[in-house]
Structure formats: C-alpha cells, structure tokens
C-alpha cells in the first residue's frame, strides 16, 4: 500500500513535469510572437532584413509616426472607434429590448419569435454574404461605416438575445409585480427594473461586442472599398499587402501594435468577466 503511494506520488510528479513543459512550450508560441511584433515595431527596415530575430539597436520611434500619420493609422483608429461605439450601443439597445419582450411578454407568437432567433443563429454567414453585399451595393449603401456597424450588431443579435433572454427570465417576478401595482409602463419596467438587474449580463454583451467589432475583418473588408474609411483591422492587411511593393516593415509592425494595444488593455482588465461569460455562453449553447 505504502509502496503504491510512493509510486503514485512519483508518477504524479513526472506527469506534472511533462505537462509543465508542454504548457511552457505552447504558451511560448503565444508570448513570443506578441513580444517579437512589439520589438520589431522599433526596428529599421535594414535591421529587419539583417536579422529578423535581433533586438533593435536603437528604438525607432519614427515607425509609430510613420504608421500613425503616413500609413493613416490615426484615421483607421478613429474609423474603428466609430464602428465600435455605434455597434456596441446598437447591440445593447436591440439585444436588451428584444430579450426583455421574449422573457416577459406572454403573447402566443413570442415563443415563435424566440424559435426564429434560435433558427437563424445556425445560418452560416457565407450563404448570406454575397447576395447581401449586392443588395446593399444596389441601394448605394456600401462604403459607409455606419452600415458596417449595423451589420456587425445585427449579425451578433441571435446569440446575444439567447444569452440575454436566459438571464432576464431568471429575474424575480416580485420586482415586476411591485412595478405593476405602481402602474408602470413596459418602458419604465424595462428601464428602471430590468436594466439595473441584468447590468452584469449587459456588460458582458458589451465586452464581446467591443472585441467583435474592433476585430471584425470580413464585414469591413467586403463593404468598405474606400481606403480613407478602412478600420484598423482592414488597414493592417492593406498595409501588409502594400508592403510587398514598398517595404516598410517597422511601420507595419507599429501599426500592428497600435491595433493590438486597445484589445490587450481591455482583455487585461476584463479577463475575469470575459472568461466567466464564456462559461455562461457555453452553458447555454451546450
């Protein structure tokens, strides 16, 4: 028995060692590229070609000036910000109101509406993309950032609604009964009772919506052809493809870091609620 225990402890120790090495190796493939991109953004082109691995000899802060001004990242940044703000606000409004109705109203067809959102959730985006693009093109609604923001918000609508409705259903009925006695309208109950109660869930929706709209690539790439209206994400890929002709790698990586920093900050601050949210999300979908 005792011998077994020692054997077990030993094998556990070895197992733990192997897993530690695996974890270290795997996460280094995550850490290293990020750090590499960061220090490469301070190198000159010459240094880049001499040795892609080496640290810069002198910090080329000019790369950031190049990315920000000449490569128009200041512009891309504002465009991204516009899309994020509009699409996050819209997401919060349309998700919470529809979810409120789905969770609280007792009309017969409300259930049908919920089933509808469940169904359309499963439609693959690629089936819609091409005809949707030409529909908007024929209405002269391409090359408009607000259209991109609206499309991003609507695209995430079904999954957001399903999560949010679940939350709102679990709210205590008594809160609403009290409001009913006071003769509150649905608007008042939504705004003064429901919204404060589900703040944390709304915050989560806002977080995923920030990440989704800041990182969006396909929608913006499809709908925005005017360079001046590119977002950071699309501007970056444009700069990369352009850099095959006029190589300015320091600038490219400076742009990459500019695109990455807001997300890293948001992630570092809100990692906990974000990962907690996946748990809930995964619970609903699973």
């Amino acid at each position: 028995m005792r011998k077994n225990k020692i054997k077990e402890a030993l094998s556990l120790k070895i197992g733990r060692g192997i897993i530690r090495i695996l974890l270290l190796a795997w996460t280094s493939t995550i850490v290293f590229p990020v750090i590499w991109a960061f220090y490469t953004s301070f190198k000159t082109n010459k240094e880049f070609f001499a040795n892609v691995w080496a640290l810069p000899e002198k910090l080329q802060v000019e790369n950031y000036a190049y990315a920000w001004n000449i490569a128009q990242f200041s512009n891309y940044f504002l465009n991204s910000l516009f899309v994020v703000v509009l699409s996050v606000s819209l997401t919060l409004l349309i998700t919470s109101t529809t979810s409120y109705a789905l969770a609280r109203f007792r009309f017969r067809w409300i259930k049908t509406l919920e089933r509808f959102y469940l169904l359309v959730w499963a439609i693959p985006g690629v089936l819609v993309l091409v005809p949707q693009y030409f529909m908007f093109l024929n209405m002269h609604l391409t090359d408009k950032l607000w259209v991109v923001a609206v499309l991003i918000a609507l695209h995430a609508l079904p999954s957001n609604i399903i999560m949010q409705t679940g939350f709102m259903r679990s709210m205590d009925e008594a809160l609403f009964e009290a409001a009913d006695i006071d003769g509150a309208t649905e608007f008042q109950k939504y705004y003064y009772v429901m919204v404060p109660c589900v703040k944390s869930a709304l915050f989560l929706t806002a977080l995923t919506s920030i990440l989704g709209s800041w990182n969006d690539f396909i929608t913006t790439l499809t709908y925005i052809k005017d360079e001046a209206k590119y977002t950071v994400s699309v501007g970056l890929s444009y700069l990369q493809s352009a850099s095959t002709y006029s190589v300015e790698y320091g600038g490219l990586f400076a742009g990459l870091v500019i695109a990455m920093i807001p997300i890293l900050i948001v992630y570092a601050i809100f990692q906990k609620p974000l990962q907690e949210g996946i748990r809930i999300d995964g619970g609903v979908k699973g």
Partner: protein
Amino acid sequence: MERKTSKLSRILTRERSKILFLITFVIPTLVAYIFCYVSPIFQSIYSSFFDWSGFGSMDFVGWENFVDLFKDPVFFKAIKNDLFYVIGKEILIVPLSIIFALALTRLRLTKAETSIYRFLLYLPNVLAVTIIGIVWAFIYDPYNGILNGLLKMIGLESLIPANGWLVEHTMPSIIFVASWCGIGYFMIILISAINSVPKDLYEAADIDGAGQWQQLWSITMPAIWDKVKYVVVNVVIGTLGNYSLAMILANGGVDGSGMVMGLYVYQYGIDSQAPRVGYANAAAIVLMIISSTIILIVNKVMNKEED
C-alpha cells in the same frame, strides 16, 4: 362596478404599453434582421439559377451554375480542404484543450502559474484575425521566418520545405494557427465543467484509495464528457465555411492548395473584377448543404454515444 372597469382599463393600458414596446423596439429590430440576414438567402437561392454579375440583366441558366461547379476541380479541392480543416482542428484542439483544462485545475499548479497560463492561453482568442495572420505569415516566411530559423538552430534543416510552409504545406500550416487561436475558448469551457464537479467526489475517492489516474478516468472525464462533445460539435460548426484566416495566410494557395469553401464563394462573388454572383451563390448553397449535413451527422454521432 367602478372598481371593475378601472381594473379592466389598467389591464388594457398594460397591454397597450406592451404593444407599444413591441412596436418601438422589437418589431424594427426583427424587420432589420430579416431584411439584412434572411432576405438575402432567398435572393441567393433565386440568383443561383441565373448568370448574373450583380448588376443589370439576369440570364436564366437553369442548373448550369451547379453543373459548372462540379466541373471545377478547385471546388472539390475546397470541399476536401474544409473537411481536412475540420479534422485537423479536432485532432489538435480536443486533446490539447482537455489537457490544458486538466492541467490548470486538477494538477494543482501554483496559483500564479494557473492564472498566468489561463491569461495567455486565451489571449489568441481576443486578437484580431489580421494581427494573427500577419504575425504567423512572418513566422512561416521561407526566407527569414522564425520557424525555419528555429529548425536550423536545432539541426532539423531537412524538415524545411523549399518553397515555404504556406506553399508546400498550406492546409497544415493554416490548421495549426487556427487551432492555436481556438484552444483557449474551449479550454475555458472545460475548466468550468471540471470546477463544477462536486469536491466530495474526489475526497471520497481519496479515502477509498483511488489514485489520480483512476480519479481522472472515473470522476473527471465522465463529468465533463458532455462538454467535450460540445467542443467537438462546435469546432465543426466554427470551421466549416470559415475562411478569414485561410484568406489572410494563403489566399487560396497554389492551385487551390489552400482553398476552402467560404473563400471560393468570396472570390467568385465579391473579390473579383467580374463577379459571377449566380455562380458564387450556387457554390454557397452547395456549401451550406454539405456543412449542415456534416454538422447533423456529427451531432447525431455525438448524441448516440449517450444512450
């Protein structure tokens, strides 16, 4: 009598305010959603029977688009690559996300280690696909890429493909990056599944003298099995038709070596000087039929096991 009417009128006002709420928010949202994301589907099905550039006249061609589709070897390559994409991602994501989830819960690493790894492993999930694509394109670069440098350093030069990773091993290179991005998300789901296993089960097993391995196979794995199935199904759903990473890394590759179904549709329908919208829509429909069939099968297989 008066009380009764006032009660009735109160109910009526309540109903009215509900209807007003629906008209103000819910109906416009629904209409916008149907307009933007549902009506194009019908347009897609309709136009797949036409020769159409997206503008002007539409010429009815019957099944010709579909026939053309099956004559194109690149389309078959795209289907094959999508299947390969799914299988490759499953092979990497499922075991690794289980191992990492177990490592960060049952292995009792230090608190600092656990939180750092948790932070880092999920990091790729929040980065933009363009950032990931650009960085990995440099890692795979045939001339001065980091991967080749690493292989040279440890004396495995023979493994280096002469024309570059993304040319010679297009799909495996894409699959690795896609899995690298996806593992964190599924790991978090599995971690919470493991954490929700009641602690006294393990305590009881300890008292009974069950070893760690035995506890893993008889307590942890059965408890998280449902979530593992969730991971398997969701990798399939998330991969079929997805093309952003494949587009940024290889944009179809050489002779369709990196062509995936979604990218095929995108290239014919949108990323083209002379778009063939009807043809692209036909491809999208075939794509949807194939992927929903696969998803249904995988779902069925995964749920059959349960009985």
